[in-house]
Structures are given as structure tokens and as C-alpha cells.
């Protein structure tokens, strides 16, 4: 076996064949699923915790503060300490709440964000599931999170929660369209819905450069709609602490609250991953036609680093939104989607189709 950081295919193949030598195919599948599950779970936890830390640090710097700096060097273990605190906190039981729905809502949210990670290519060959309808799968799974939010708001027996949940329902269902259409624009350019094929297609130039203006418009719309879908930034109407105290998760405490919190950050990570994969070439290095030595240097940087740094840039942009803009009002939010983003998007799809048809893209 040789562990190649530029191509994980041989490594994963080696695990597969060596497991096949040891046990029957059924147990091989079971074993591989467990390994992938544990690996993704660990990745999920680490990313979730450190996104919270990153947000607190970044917002601290934007607000003339230091951010967490007591637990560990630069407050590096602050979120872990917070997690332990949340784990040992009491779970307050709400009178007259719908117990079953109330308890199941955080799990629905966290499971949907967990499912979406499975389809994301982290590096060459490092890919839990390579669906041929990868883009569709990610969208389908991530839009299920709204069910958890609606249930949480409905079952809490709290008027603020209900308003928050209803807002969130209207918001996510609307912005789902923009996310979908902007991805479809890129699917037209890529000619495939398979995420690995989309990434491979960007080996010689990322789609945002290849696709002319429509790709750029699609990227901007995707970032706006993606931020809205994660209930963040200027679109955090479902939580809106100055209006609805905490919106749909007002009544949640302890680790159930942490589930909502973690899911929000993971949704942001997923949206950023998709943006990086579809528009910025995923794990593909920067490639400029004719600059051979430059391309060699870029290719020397491992794919996983490329993927993570692109995702980090998108996440930073989303955090930047959140800490700069005031919040929109619900009618302005829906106006933005239905009157501006959606028509632009529909036109953009047509434009992209025309450009691809004519072969005008690079």
C-alpha cells in the first residue's frame, strides 16, 4: 500500500481488497460503512467545533475584540469546553409541548446536514458516495432540514418559536429555488450531475472562469441564496434575537440546543463546500493556460488543502455578511427572492444554455 496524498484511489482500493481477503462481502460492506460513518462523524464534529471557534474569532476581530482567548493557546479549546458544558446541562422539559416532535426535531436537522456531507468530494478518491445525481442529492437532502425547524417551532408551544418556524419555512422553501437554479446553470456547463465529474471537468480552469458572466452571476446568487438557506447573516429571520428572542430554538436547552447550533455551522460548511466544488474546482489546483511552471507549483499543493482553503474562503465571506449587514424584514426577504433573484436566475440558465450550445465558453 502506498498513501498518496494526491490520489486516494489506491489507498481506498487497498482497504477494500484487504477487507475482501479477510471476510465475506456482506461483512465487508458493513465494515466499510462503519469506517466511513466513524470517519465522517469525527470530521463533522471537528469541523463543527472549529467553525464555531473561527466564527467567534473572526467576529471578534471585526468588532474590535479579541474573541475567546482563555482556554488553551488563543482560546483554541474554548468550543470543546463549551461542548462539555452543554453536554452536562439540564434538558428542560417544556410543559404542554409535543414531546415526541420536540425531541425528534434536533435529530432531523442534524441528520440531514450529516447526510449531505456523504456526497462531497474532499480530494481525489476521498469520496464517501459518488452518486451520478450528486447535485440533486445534496439539494434534496439539505432542503429536508426545514422539516426539523418547522417541527421545533410547532412543538415548542411557544408563540415566538412558531413565528420563527413559519418565517423559516417561507424563507427556505423560496431560496431553495435559487440554489437549485444556480446549480443547474453550472450543471449545464459541466454536462453532468455527478460531483466527481464536475470536479474533473475543472482540471483546466475552474467553472467560474470558464463560464463567462453567467457562471459569475450564478456564483453570486448561490452565495446569497445559500446564506439564506442556512438561516444566517442578514437572513437570520428565523432566529432574529432582537425580534423573536431566539426563534425556533427558544425552548431548547443543553445538547439539543447544541444540535441546532452545530447544524447551522455544518449547513454553512456544506453550502461553502458545494460552492467551492461547483464553482471553484473543488480539490483541483489553480490552472492557468500556458503558465507551466506556475501550474506545477499549484499542483504540488495537496488537493485536500485546496479543497479546505477554498471552502474556508467561502465561509469567511458568509461570516463577513453576517457581521456587517443588518437583518432583512420578511417581506423584503421574499421580494428579493421572487422579484429579483428568481427572474435573473431563469434568464441566467437560458444564457448559459445558449453559450454552451454555441460553444462560446472556454
Amino acid at each position, binding site marked *: 500500500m502506498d498513501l498518496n496524498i494526491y490520489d486516494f484511489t489506491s489507498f481506498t482500493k487497498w482497504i477494500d481488497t484487504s477487507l475482501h481477503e479477510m471476510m465475506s462481502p456482506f461483512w465487508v460492506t458493513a465494515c466499510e460503512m462503519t469506517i466511513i460513518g466513524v470517519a465522517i462523524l469525527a470530521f463533522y464534529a471537528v469541523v463543527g467545533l472549529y467553525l464555531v471557534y473561527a466564527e467567534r474569532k473572526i*467576529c471578534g476581530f*471585526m*468588532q*474590535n*475584540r479579541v474573541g475567546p482567548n482563555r482556554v488553551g493557546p488563543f482560546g483554541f479549546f474554548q468550543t470543546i469546553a463549551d461542548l462539555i458544558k452543554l453536554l452536562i446541562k439540564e434538558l428542560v422539559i417544556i410543559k404542554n409541548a409535543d414531546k415526541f416532535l420536540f425531541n425528534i426535531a434536533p435529530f432531523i436537522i442534524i441528520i440531514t446536514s450529516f447526510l449531505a456531507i456523504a456526497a462531497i468530494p474532499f480530494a481525489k478518491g476521498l469520496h464517501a458516495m459518488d452518486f451520478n445525481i450528486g447535485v440533486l442529492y445534496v439539494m434534496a437532502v439539505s432542503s429536508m432540514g426545514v422539516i426539523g425547524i418547522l417541527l421545533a417551532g410547532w412543538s415548542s408551544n411557544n*408563540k*415566538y418559536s412558531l*413565528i420563527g418556524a413559519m*418565517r423559516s419555512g417561507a424563507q427556505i422553501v423560496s431560496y431553495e429555488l435559487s440554489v437549485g437554479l444556480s446549480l443547474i446553470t453550472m450543471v449545464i456547463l459541466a454536462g453532468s450531475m455527478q460531483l466527481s465529474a464536475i470536479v474533473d471537468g475543472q482540471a483546466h480552469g475552474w467553472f467560474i472562469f470558464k463560464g463567462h458572466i453567467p457562471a459569475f452571476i450564478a456564483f453570486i446568487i448561490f452565495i446569497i441564496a445559500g446564506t439564506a438557506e442556512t438561516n444566517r447573516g*442578514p437572513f*437570520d*429571520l428565523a432566529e*432574529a*434575537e*432582537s*425580534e*423573536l*428572542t431566539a426563534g425556533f430554538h427558544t425552548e431548547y436547552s443543553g445538547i439539543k440546543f447544541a444540535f441546532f447550533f452545530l447544524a447551522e455551522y455544518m449547513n454553512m460548511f456544506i453550502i461553502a463546500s458545494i460552492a467551492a466544488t461547483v464553482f471553484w474546482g473543488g480539490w483541483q489546483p489553480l490552472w492557468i493556460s500556458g503558465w507551466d511552471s506556475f501550474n506545477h507549483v499549484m499542483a504540488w499543493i495537496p488537493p485536500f488543502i485546496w479543497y479546505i482553503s477554498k471552502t474556508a474562503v467561502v465561509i469567511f465571506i458568509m461570516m463577513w455578511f453576517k*457581521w*456587517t*449587514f*443588518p*437583518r*432583512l*424584514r*420578511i*417581506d*423584503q426577504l421574499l421580494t428579493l427572492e421572487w422579484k429579483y433573484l428568481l427572474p435573473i436566475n431563469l434568464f441566467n440558465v437560458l444564457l448559459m444554455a445558449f453559450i454552451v450550445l454555441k460553444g462560446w465558453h472556454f
Partner: protein
Amino acid sequence: MTDLIQEIEQQEYIINMGPQHPSTHGVLRLVLSLKGEIVKNVEPHCGYIHRGIEKMCEKLTYQQIIHLTDRLDYLSAHINNAAVCLLVEKALGIEVPERVKYIRTIIDELTRIASHQLWWCSFGMDLGGLTCFFYGLRDREHILDIFEETTGGRLIQSYYTPGGLMKDIHPNFQKRVKDFIKYFRKILPEYDQLLTGNVIMQARSKGIGKLSLEDAISFGATGPSGRGSGFACDVRKLHPYHLYDKVNFKEILYQEGDTFARYKVRMDEMWESMSIIEQLIDNIPEGDFTAKMKPIIKLPEGEYYQRVEAARGEFGVYILSKGDKYPYRVKFRSPNFSNLSILNTIVPGQKIADLVAIGGSLDYVIPDIDR
């Protein structure tokens, strides 16, 4: 079935906003009747922080009353103190030294800037822009440091006494105030960049919560809330006290009467306050920091009223004296109480998010409402 639908449609969704709520700025309770997101009716319930200050004043001497006025509108503490001091001085016919007038004017204007800075913080936060909060507090800190050095307190200082000041200004005072003005003139455009010019902020505030001039006058909405509707109600211009008849300043008036107009009034007032301070800071004359006063002040029998322009509007003190060392009856006319009363006129028909923005632009301080 149609009856049932009609009945459900007529039902209102009633929520209690407060007494514990992030955007009521204290323990104010608003009972909202909602129709979806739209507010049909707002009913403010005050009294959660009623301390009976007016009644307490009846058993306190005039010097002691000063300390209670701090606890009304704690963000314009000095201006409230000044009202009582001016009233006592007027009743006794005392002329305070020129130096005191200069210092009082400068400190009143610094208080106004500090108060408007905090208003800007919380207005930004009400709209959901959390970064504003830290920017505003960072700059307010400079003023509080100046106050701390001179008066010994940061929020409630009780610096004025009938006849003058508690003690003289700190030797650094003039230099630090000048440094602050220089610093804040550079920083204030940054506030505009962050919030005023923002598309979302403008969409959230323009045309929202329109208060007509007639309503502003009939409800007695004063201060920036009234001036945003074109109501020229600046006590500094109408009944000058301190040195306001000697300095040059504009009364900021906007005609629109919406949330954005009230916002702009406050932003412009900060510039005006800075220019007032700049006119005075270099010319503070030498002299006593207090007039000669008797240790026990007894107001002659009669009724007295003194009004000043606090950061949120006209603050008035009414004292009925029977010639004792205690007042017989005290009444404070607090600006926030009148400003709160316009809420049910301008909010119905707007959304919950607008209610929060309007509340932020009226800038109420709850201890001042309940007293």
C-alpha cells in the same frame, strides 16, 4: 365551515414582548396583537421598574434629590442633574460663576454625544447588525473615561450641585476633550459607512413608523423623536439655559417623520454637539467652581418649573415648595414617557421587525418612563 374560517381569521395572535426581551431595552412590556406578521395593536405596560422616585424626593433635601435624578434617564444623567440645579438656582436667585456655565455646557453636550452613541449601538443591534454595538461602545468609552477622571463616576456621577459643581475639573479635562473631538470627527463618518448608507438599513427604516407633525405635537413627542417630524422643540433654542444663547448651533429638523429621519436627527446632533464643545473648550474662564451656598437650602414658598433638553427630549422638573428644606411635591416630566405614548399611533399596520426598528429609533430608557 365558512363561519369557522371567518372566526379564525378574526382571531388575533397575542404575544407578550417583554418585560424580558432583548429589544425592549429594559423591562418594558408590550402586548402585541398580531395578524400573521403584522402588528394590529400595541399596548405598552409600564411600571416594572417603578421606584417611586418622585415620592422619595419629598423626604430628601435639594442636594440629595440630584442623586435620584441620575437614576431616571441614566444615559443623560448630567442633564437631569442640571434641571434640578437650575431650578434651585432660579428659585433662590443665585447667579452661578461663568466657569460653571462653561463646564456645565460642555459636560451636557458630552453626555448627549455619549447617549447618542449608545443609541446608535442599540439601534444597529435592533436591526440585527451586531457589529454596530461594539463600534459605538468603543467610542463611548472615551467619554466615560473623561467623566471618570473629572467626576469620579462613569454612568451616574451626580456632578452638579445647586450653585455649581461638586469639584473642579481635572487638569487633563480640556486636553482630553479636545483629543476626543479630534478622534470622533474622524470616526463618525465610519458610522455612516457601516450603517447609514447600507441598503438593508435604509429599506428597513425609510417610510417606516411615520409620525406626523400634528401627532408629534399633540402627544408631546420631543427631542430627536419630535424633531424628526419637523417639530421645533429644542429647549436649548426656545428657553436657553447654561450658555446655549451664546454658542452657535443649528436645531436639526427633518420633515419626513419616519425612522430614518429620527436616525438622521441623532447623527447630525452629534456633529452639532461637537461644534458646541469646540466653541467653548478653549475659553473656560478662571474662577470658582461653585457659588457660595448655604448648607441647608430652603426654597421660598411657591411653584417652580425648569425644563432642559435631555438627550431624548424635554426633561422638566416641577417642584411645589412650602418653604421647608424638603420639597412638598415633585414631578418629573420625562421625555421617554411621552415618546412611548406615540407607539400605538405609528406602529399598527407595520410588521414585528418594524416595531423593533421604531422602538430603537424612539430610543426609550425604561427607568425614565417608570420613575
